[in-house]
């Protein structure tokens, strides 16, 4: 077992942010498109 857990939380935050931006962004885009088909 490693003594110290790797400190790479920045990558985790970046990935979660990217996923949220893509999914929420698409949800908003889809909502706007359905307002004026």
């Amino acid at each position: 077992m490693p003594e110290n857990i790797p400190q790479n939380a920045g990558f985790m935050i970046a990935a979660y942010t990217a996923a949220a931006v893509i999914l929420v962004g698409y949800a908003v885009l889809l909502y706007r498109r359905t307002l004026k088909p």
Partner: protein
Amino acid sequence: MKLLKAGRWITAAGLALLAGVYVRALVFTPVERFQGPAQKIFYVHVPAAWCAMLAMGLVGIAGILYLLLKDPRFDRFGEASAEVGTVFSMVMLTTGPIWAKPIWGTWWTWDARLTLTLFLFLLFLGLLLLRSAVTDPGLRARYSAVLGICGLVLLPFIHLSVYFFRTLHPQPIVLKPSAPSLPGPMLLTLLFSFAVFTILYVGFVTQRYALALLREQAEMGAGGGGGNA
């Protein structure tokens, strides 16, 4: 339109539950001691990959059904699923390299699994480009169905590529013949995320299907009643 409203509600519920996945994964799920916090990318990367493959699988099945039955609902569904699959592929291909960098030391490697998933994304893009390029609805539906079936054929190769080839990508830990190799809290978070991403997929596809239907009705001019919805 009832379908559109249902899609919006399902999507809203999915997004709210996604916030729950984030809280559960980031706050209440233990940190893996070898990989550190970056391992938690797993809880969005794997469900996104699942939804991308689910989307392509259903595009392919809808394509087969369209070629057999010539029912425009299958073509409409295939169109919706392809667009939504592209979105989940983007999540998969964005979060994957961000996870790979701290663990493998590189953002990308041209091994079988990664290359095939990129190919899946390009197939989704190809489907969308094809649909926008072909104006004749019958031809468009037929070409899309064939391309979707090609995507369906690709899926087993993607899933099994980690067994057939030497690759940096880990082997399946849930979708495999033996029991999932994850501690309980991590498995629970992953299954929760799988469910939420699937709800989001359903919500997105329902809305996108309704949008396609609205566009067809607008093109016909008089709002045709949605008989084939």
